[in-house]
């Protein structure tokens, strides 16, 4: 049998640049995983001591090592949802205006303004809320409302530092997220749909309300969830506004507490192992909730932009 000579195979040299950059890029997923692992390990003593009861416990008493997260979870969720209720109509209105192809000079100014709103540091919102917004809101919103509607339990008992005032500043802070993503989603609605509506004689409002907004619904929902994630994790401005009382308030005008605020206020003063572990477990709860919320939102927003890429 004749010996066969293997044909020389031209192999591409290994792409080392690809390997190196891929390794550097791994930093992002790696950090994310390590954060969660480190927080789970840090909260181990509290996890062992309280188990799932930690999530429904209502006391927070460091001297006797009794810890439950429910009031902080309640405050976090309540402040975020109220802020969304305030910010959502405004955010969608701004997004609709920004996505319009007309009035480009006014839109430029509005767009810049909203982006600057996102650039202002949290602590500056905090000091402004503490000395300006909260006293104003107490005098001109909380007291008049509770005077007239105080017979409704959750609109009574006005206080300067309250769940409501924290929600107000949160609404301002999440507005840019809500607006920027909603605007992109509205812009991604295929132009043909809008042109069809206009050709059929629909007015500007009929086109917007019956055609564009329904088409962008899933994406706007994604933007809303993403803004919810931002609101849940916001720390400093909320800590300076919410009043920091560890209880489940009966009224939105009463003080409350959030997961992030408890950590911010107590962590450096926590001396017992269990206290520190309980605070880290609050952080764990917070990061797991925001992870899930952000993932859902990102998948929603992405599925929308992929669809439009296929149809446009």
């Amino acid at each position, binding site marked *: 049998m004749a010996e066969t000579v293997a044909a020389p195979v031209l192999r591409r040299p290994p792409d080392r*640049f690809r390997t190196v*950059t891929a390794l550097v*890029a791994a930093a992002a997923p790696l950090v994310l995983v390590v954060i969660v692992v480190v927080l789970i390990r840090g909260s181990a003593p509290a996890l062992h001591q309280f188990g799932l009861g930690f999530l429904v416990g209502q006391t927070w008493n460091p001297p006797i090592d009794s810890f439950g997260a429910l009031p902080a979870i309640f405050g976090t969720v309540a402040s975020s949802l109220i802020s969304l209720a305030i910010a959502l109509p405004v955010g969608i209105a*701004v997004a609709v205006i920004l996505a319009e192809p007309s009035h480009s000079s006014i839109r430029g100014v509005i767009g810049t303004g909203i982006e600057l*709103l996102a650039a202002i540091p949290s*602590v*500056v919102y905090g000091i402004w809320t503490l000395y300006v917004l909260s006293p104003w809101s107490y005098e001109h919103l909380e007291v008049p409302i509770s005077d007239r509607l105080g017979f409704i339990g959750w609109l009574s008992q006005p206080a300067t530092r309250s769940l409501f005032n924290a929600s107000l500043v949160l609404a301002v802070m999440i507005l840019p997220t809500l607006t920027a993503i909603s605007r992109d989603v509205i812009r991604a609605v295929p132009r043909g749909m809008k042109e069809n509506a206009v050709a059929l004689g629909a007015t*500007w*409002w009929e086109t917007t309300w019956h055609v564009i907004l329904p088409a962008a619904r899933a994406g706007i929902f994604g933007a809303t969830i993403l803004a919810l994630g931002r609101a849940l994790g916001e720390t400093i401005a909320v800590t300076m506004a919410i009043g920091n009382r560890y209880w489940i308030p009966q009224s939105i005008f009463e003080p409350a507490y959030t997961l*992030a605020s408890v950590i911010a206020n107590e962590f450096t003063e926590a001396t017992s192992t269990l206290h520190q572990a309980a605070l880290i477990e609050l952080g764990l709860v917070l990061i797991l909730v925001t992870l899930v919320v952000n993932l859902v939102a990102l998948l929603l927003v992405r599925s929308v932009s992929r669809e439009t890429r296929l149809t446009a």
Partner: protein
Amino acid sequence: MNRTSRRSYTSFAWLGVMYLLTAFALIPLGLVLWFTVAKGLPPALHIEFYTNVFRPVGVPGAGIKQAIVGTLMLVGMASVMAIPAGILGGIYLAEYGLARWAGWVRLASDVLVGTPSIAVGLFVYAILVAPLHHFSGVSGSVALAVLMLPIVVRTTEGSVALIPNGLRESGLALGLPRWRVSLQLILPAAAPGVITGALLSVARASGETAPLLFTAFGNQLLSLDPTHAIQALPLTVYQYALTPYKSLQDQAWGAALVLVVMVLGINLVSRWVLRRQIALAGQL
């Protein structure tokens, strides 16, 4: 009034409502800026405010030099850690973006952008502060770097992906290896966008308070040693604003003004750089 004109009036009215809500959205921006300037300017007009450090309440001539220097150190160290890594990561996503691994990196970066900064502070405390038993500037800058990294990655990816494929192909056709094409051809062409992203991440890091609370911790005195507790502008605003002393509250407003000028200044510069990128992309 006939049906058609009623419909057009309705439409016009709703357009008005939308513009009204938009105006309403911009009111807080004006108010925050106005009060920061009005309350922050009186303390910020004195030169001692920038050249002196903390003085006890009642002693005149107090300043925030320790905070300004501290913020520059913290953000500087964080930039050294996050910006080169972020740029390389962004290049990977743009150049090899179809790989499955790239999808995971992209998702993780987007999730990391939305991660509560206080949780990042807890994380860095657990890995760098607790084992070494003291607060440090280094740990603060690591926390800031974690927050900066995903911003740099995603903005770099965005601006590198804008560079036309022709440039890439001509480089490869001339026999350049991939790394030289990416770093010496594509990156310089994408520079304005990359710089914009880096500047935005610096602005974000300069304003962060929560991740510094239990890492850099704060320091009333000027410290140039990154292995010890260090002050930062946002920490100053937070700590002084919550004291009952009028003079410290005034300094908090002054520090807030310095912070806002710094952060908005960086933002405006980055916008200007980005506009040049768009002009440049038009020529390519």
